[in-house]
């Protein structure tokens, strides 16, 4: 034990008395562990905001939509004649369908899935005592493979229908009451099947009060929406010129949903809020009176106008609640808001009365829903955990008076996507962080090699004094633990400080203390383990080798195995093979969708393997190659006398110590290649993001007429855009499901974009890569030369079995008064289309479309800016706002929603992706710069440590200090230059593989880009670090004690 204390003291003194040597090793460990732990803290900090960022843009967390809003409507009761059954017994089941509501229930379907314990008795079904024929030998209540129910047609109010059938027990049933009730009922009005014996419908306010008490629910607010016919909203005998939407909600709803804006006035009991468009159409202001025509013979409802609303930002109010078109946005400009008491006292009874009328002419019934806000502060920062939380809340919310509604769980859907995004983010972090971690280990190992080399003399002295191998190894272990321990601790502190500076206090500390503590422990312990190994292994190997040499076991010079064997070549071949296989298997192919479309992406971690191998093996291979070439050149020159002092010494020093030089070259090369890869990756990422945003917008700027704008927006308006900054403009007609495409094989509802082929190509972001049947130019040309031609999305074309040249029929302007069916022809195929990347199914010629439909308005305009920078885009928007035809004396934004590629980027940042890739790249780049400088400094100071006796001997021989400085600088410079050159080469190759992982993330496949300026900065930094290190080393050489060093043996 005392011996150990002595050895410990020896190590302590050794470390303190050789500060340069200790510092050289320590810096490598600190920087390496710094990067490793910084990535951990970065993931903590970024991850902590993922949930918050994902749910931030969500306006409605959950919607409980009542399926039978008018007084309960249709109900299904199920009874069974017997309480218990023996095997083989039969029992009678009675289903009673009763319409307790005021409106007829149409297309009432009753469905009874089979039960394992009971089998259907053939020909036993009756409806109101009338036998119903079995279908295909089975129950008519569960028909065919699909298990279709029995359609009993319309059930009028206050009418009930009785269906009976018999079941036979296949085994004894102790209690028929315990059997699960499986019969369901659905109608055209309430398509969601409701279970038999469901509780009676709960009143909306009662439901709201109960749901509000569910843990995790912050608020539950009733909302009623009624679509009413045009001209039902009047004032002084004047009606609004279009359909009307009536809403009923209270002031609490207003406070919970700030997207519902009141421009003037306020909400008051018994009054009405009208939209700005209604106010304009009826020339009304606050204090006026608005009249609502009610159905069912009720007297018109006259209400005082207490406020003017702007509902154009309240998208959820106008999104469809119908299953087929769920969440489809259809803005209605003429709206009126009444308070719930007005609705329940006057509007609802009128609709009930109208619905109860035989041959009711009501087109739509009131829709009642409960909008639920979740307590967001309780949500876990991890989206996956938050998803589990919201799913649990959704289950609890749905459990309250279930069976009379359906739940639209927006928040869980969003978090589900966010959770998958978060998983991808973490994988991407590993993608980008792992090379840094590997480099940290390599850097430490390099430091370890230098340290071990510098320790040779001490080891020899200790052996002379009787130290055995085990003593030397013990000393090495103590030294390693000390350096790795202190280095890991300092590295973790450095990592934390860097992330704190990068993300800021508020973001980093959003992570839980437990998560940060865990990262700290992993950083210190993991860093210590890896760096300790990286320090210990080369030291141990050197001690073993020296002892063998002293014992004459092996007197041969040893070289690393990668020098002797073509392992680099083999590894390179493996990397190439892996990459080819991955490409062939489509591992990098994007799933349909993009981060912009709110869809999660996939990123298999195994794709990381090939680029990492290529990085390591590529660097080694090129260094190996250079070494071979240099060695051959040196041997070809033979023994030559000295002609020039500096070059003669330098050439011999380099060519005869290639292993040492190559070590420096490889280390610098690995660092620079990582830096190069990161710079390329960042550039590609940024470029792809901008390109994607531009593709998503359609061009640089998109002007979409505001729903509140009362001005016409003809396609010809784009000709007015000819102002400073505008390079071109083109009108587009596009809306979701605005057409039907019919082929010989089938037909489908489609979203059609009508474009002007003459201007679209120069204005829109239209890369050739989106077309599968030719270039963008050729496709537009085809559309121009064939006015009745259409371009079809490839997936749709496959579904309808269409190919180029096929005739089709297209229903244009679907669901409008101008809808018309016209024959057209397929002239091209595309995969995605700018403006609505995932939504465009077919593209038609705008002139042809207008001729056929008679419609003249555009749905939006695309504008190309001559300057695509952010200030350039701002200037162009400013220029557009000065166009009288656009602004009409108002702010441009009052008439148009202005979307630029920059604002699309911002929207992406705040809404969907949690992939703070740029941040991680900045972090990686910072540490790469640090490591590049460290690696260079380590090479120079390592050289100084190992060669100081050579330098003082040269001094004794009379070599001038400037010559010695020149030697150090030249050798370090050659190493750094070669390392940088190799690094840039390998880094670009590595980046070409790494950018493949971005393919699934973006709509447009990103292409490799090399940022020359950034690479020049990286190279300059490495060379500056070399110059500074060399200068410092030369200064140190001047301070060496020659007498002492020259006497050393």
């Amino acid at each position: 034990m005392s011996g150990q204390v002595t050895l410990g003291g020896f190590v302590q003194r050794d470390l303190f008395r050789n500060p340069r040597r200790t510092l050289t090793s320590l810096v490598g460990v600190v920087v390496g562990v710094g990067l490793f732990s910084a990535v951990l803290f970065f993931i903590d900090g970024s991850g902590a905001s993922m949930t918050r960022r994902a749910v931030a843009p969500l306006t409605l967390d959950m919607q409980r939509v009542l399926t039978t809003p008018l007084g309960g409507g249709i109900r299904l009761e199920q009874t069974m004649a017997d309480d218990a059954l023996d095997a083989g017994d039969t029992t009678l089941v009675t289903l009673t369908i009763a319409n307790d509501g005021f409106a007829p229930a149409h297309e009432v379907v009753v469905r009874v899935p089979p039960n394992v314990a009971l089998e259907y008795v053939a020909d036993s079904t009756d409806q109101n005592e009338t036998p119903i024929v079995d279908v295909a030998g089975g129950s008519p209540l569960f028909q065919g493979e699909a298990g279709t129910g029995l359609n009993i047609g319309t059930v009028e109010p206050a009418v009930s229908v009785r269906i009976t059938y018999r079941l036979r027990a296949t085994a004894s049933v102790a209690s028929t009451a315990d059997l699960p009730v499986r019969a369901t009922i659905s109608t055209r009005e309430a398509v969601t099947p409701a279970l038999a014996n469901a509780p009676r419908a709960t009143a909306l306010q009662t439901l709201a009060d109960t749901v509000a008490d569910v843990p995790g629910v912050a608020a539950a607010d009733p909302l009623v929406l009624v679509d009413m016919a045009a001209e039902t909203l009047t004032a002084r005998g004047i009606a609004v010129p279009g359909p009307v939407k009536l809403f009923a909600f209270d002031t609490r709803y207003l406070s919970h949903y700030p997207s519902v804006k009141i421009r003037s006035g306020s909400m008051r009991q018994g009054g009405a809020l009208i939209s700005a468009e209604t106010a304009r159409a009826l020339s009304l202001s606050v204090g006026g009176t608005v009249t609502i025509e009610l159905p069912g013979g009720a007297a018109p409802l006259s209400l005082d106008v207490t406020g003017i609303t702007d509902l154009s930002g309240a998208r959820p109010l106008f999104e469809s609640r119908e299953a087929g078109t769920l969440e489809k946005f259809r803005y209605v400009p003429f709206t009126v808001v009444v308070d719930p008491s007005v609705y329940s006292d006057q509007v609802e009874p009128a609709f009930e009365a109208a619905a109860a009328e035989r041959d009711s002419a009501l087109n739509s019934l009131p829709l009642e829903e409960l909008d639920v806000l979740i307590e967001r502060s309780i949500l876990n920062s991890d989206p996956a955990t938050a998803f589990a939380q919201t799913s649990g809340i959704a289950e609890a919310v749905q459990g309250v008076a279930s069976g009379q509604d359906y739940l639209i769980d927006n928040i869980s859907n969003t978090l589900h996507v966010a959770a998958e995004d978060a998983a991808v983010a973490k994988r991407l972090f590993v993608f980008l962080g792992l090379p840094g971690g590997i480099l940290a280990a390599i850097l430490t190992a390099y430091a370890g090699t230098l340290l071990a080399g510098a320790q040779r003399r001490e080891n020899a002295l200790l052996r002379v004094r009787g130290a055995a191998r085990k003593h030397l190894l013990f000393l090495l272990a103590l030294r390693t633990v000390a350096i790795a321990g202190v280095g890991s601790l300092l590295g973790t502190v450095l990592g934390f400080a860097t992330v704190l500076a990068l993300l800021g206090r508020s973001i980093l500390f959003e992570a839980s203390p437990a998560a940060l503590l865990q990262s700290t422990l992993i950083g210190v312990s993991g860093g210590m383990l890896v760096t300790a190994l990286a320090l210990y292994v080369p030291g141990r190997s050197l001690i073993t080798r020296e002892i063998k040499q002293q014992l004459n076991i092996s007197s041969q010079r040893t070289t690393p195995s990668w020098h002797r064997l073509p392992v680099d070549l083999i590894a390179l071949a493996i990397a190439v093979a892996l990459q080819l296989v991955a490409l062939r298997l489509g591992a990098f192919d994007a799933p349909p969708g993009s981060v912009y479309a709110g869809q999660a992406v996939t990123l298999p971690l195994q794709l990381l393997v090939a680029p990492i191998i290529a990085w390591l093996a590529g660097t080694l291979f090129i260094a190996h190659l250079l070494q071979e070439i240099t060695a051959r050149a040196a041997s070809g020159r033979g023994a030559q006398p000295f002609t020039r002092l500096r070059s003669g010494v330098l050439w011999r020093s380099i060519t005869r110590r290639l292993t040492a030089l190559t070590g420096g070259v490889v280390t610098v090369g690995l660092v620079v290649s990582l830096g190069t890869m990161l710079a390329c990756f960042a550039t590609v990422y940024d470029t792809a993001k901008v390109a994607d945003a531009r593709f998503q917008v359609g061009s640089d700027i998109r002007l979409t007429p505001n729903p509140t704008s009362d001005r016409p927006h003809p396609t010809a308006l784009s000709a007015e855009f000819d102002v400073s900054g505008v390079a071109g403009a083109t009108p587009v007609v596009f809306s979701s499901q605005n057409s039907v495409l019919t082929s010989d094989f089938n037909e489908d509802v489609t979203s059609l974009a009508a474009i002007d082929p003459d201007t679209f190509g120069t204005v829109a972001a239209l890369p050739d890569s989106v077309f599968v049947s030719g270039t963008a130019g050729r496709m537009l040309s085809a559309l121009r030369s064939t006015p009745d031609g259409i371009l079809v999305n490839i997936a749709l074309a496959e579904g309808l079995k269409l190919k180029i040249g096929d005739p089709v029929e297209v229903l244009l302007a679907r669901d409008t008064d101008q809808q018309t069916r016209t024959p057209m022809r397929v002239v091209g195929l595309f995969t995605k289309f700018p403006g609505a990347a995932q939504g465009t199914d077919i593209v038609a010629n705008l002139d042809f479309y207008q001729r056929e439909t008679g419609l003249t308005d555009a749905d939006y305009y695309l504008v190309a800016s001559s300057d695509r920078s952010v200030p350039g885009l701002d200037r162009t928007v400013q220029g557009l706002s000065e166009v009288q035809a656009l602004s009409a004396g108002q702010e441009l934004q009052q008439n148009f929603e202005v979307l630029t590629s920059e604002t699309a980027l911002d929207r992406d940042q705040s809404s969907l992706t949690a992939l703070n890739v740029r941040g991680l790249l900045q972090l990686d780049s910072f540490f790469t710069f640090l490591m590049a400088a460290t690696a260079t400094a380590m090479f120079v100071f390592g050289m100084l440590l190992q060669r100081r006796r050579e330098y003082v001997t040269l001094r004794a021989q009379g070599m001038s200090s400037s010559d010695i400085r020149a030697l150090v600088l030249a050798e370090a410079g050659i190493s750094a230059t070669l390392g940088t050159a190799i690094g840039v080469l390998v880094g670009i190759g590595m980046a070409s593989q790494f950018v493949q992982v971005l393919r699934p993330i973006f709509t447009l496949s990103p292409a490799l880009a090399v940022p020359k300026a950034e690479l020049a900065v990286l190279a300059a930094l490495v060379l500056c670090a070399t110059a500074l290190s060399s200068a410092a080393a030369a200064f140190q050489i001047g301070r060496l004690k020659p007498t002492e060093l020259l006497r050393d043996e």
Partner: protein
Amino acid sequence: MIGSIEPREYPATAKGWGLRVAVTALSMRYTTASGPIRALDGVTMTVEPGTSVAIVGPSGSGKSTRLGILGGLETPTSGEVRVGPHLLSAMAEPDRAALRRRHFGFVFQAGNLQPFLTASENVGLQAVLAGLADEPAQTRALLESLDVISLERRFPDELSGGQRQRVAVARAIVHNPGIILADEPTGSLDGASVNRVVELLLQHHATHGATLVVVTHDRAVAERMSTVLEMRAGRMAGPT
């Protein structure tokens, strides 16, 4: 200043190149972690040109320090060192380097050959440093005279201790210096090699008249020099 030291012709075999060394009140102090150390304390001595001097004394007595100062590798804390006409202790490092490469030859205990140069290149480098041409024939002749011609293409780590030291002697005398400073030149050699190395140094000293200063622990080596000076605790103990 460097211009004051004129380069000489490649040495002929004539005698008379030896330089006089005069040391006056030389002191050298170091500061270490355990306090100041006085390595030399008012040392005064003179070595006449063409003579051979051995400096002996126990470890830590300041022998090597003095040799380092004589060679211009270290600057004394106080006192004067004059080599030939040059006041070495007052010269700047570039001038001292110029003086060393042209007029000094060093032999160290470990040889201290450059590990990346062959035996002949180690010798050739010194010639080039001294401003002479690296003449392979001259080098070969020198190595032959030292009986290491067969090793001329070997690297230092391929030589034995004795062979290394003979090459080191060749390097020290290739430019025919005026003074040869040898610090324990036989310290790590066996008996036969010790004799061989001492013979070589004395032979060159005799042939070319270079002043020879040898620091040694070995009494037998010391006694082969014309003068033996003893040092104790940084002071001259006088001729023995």
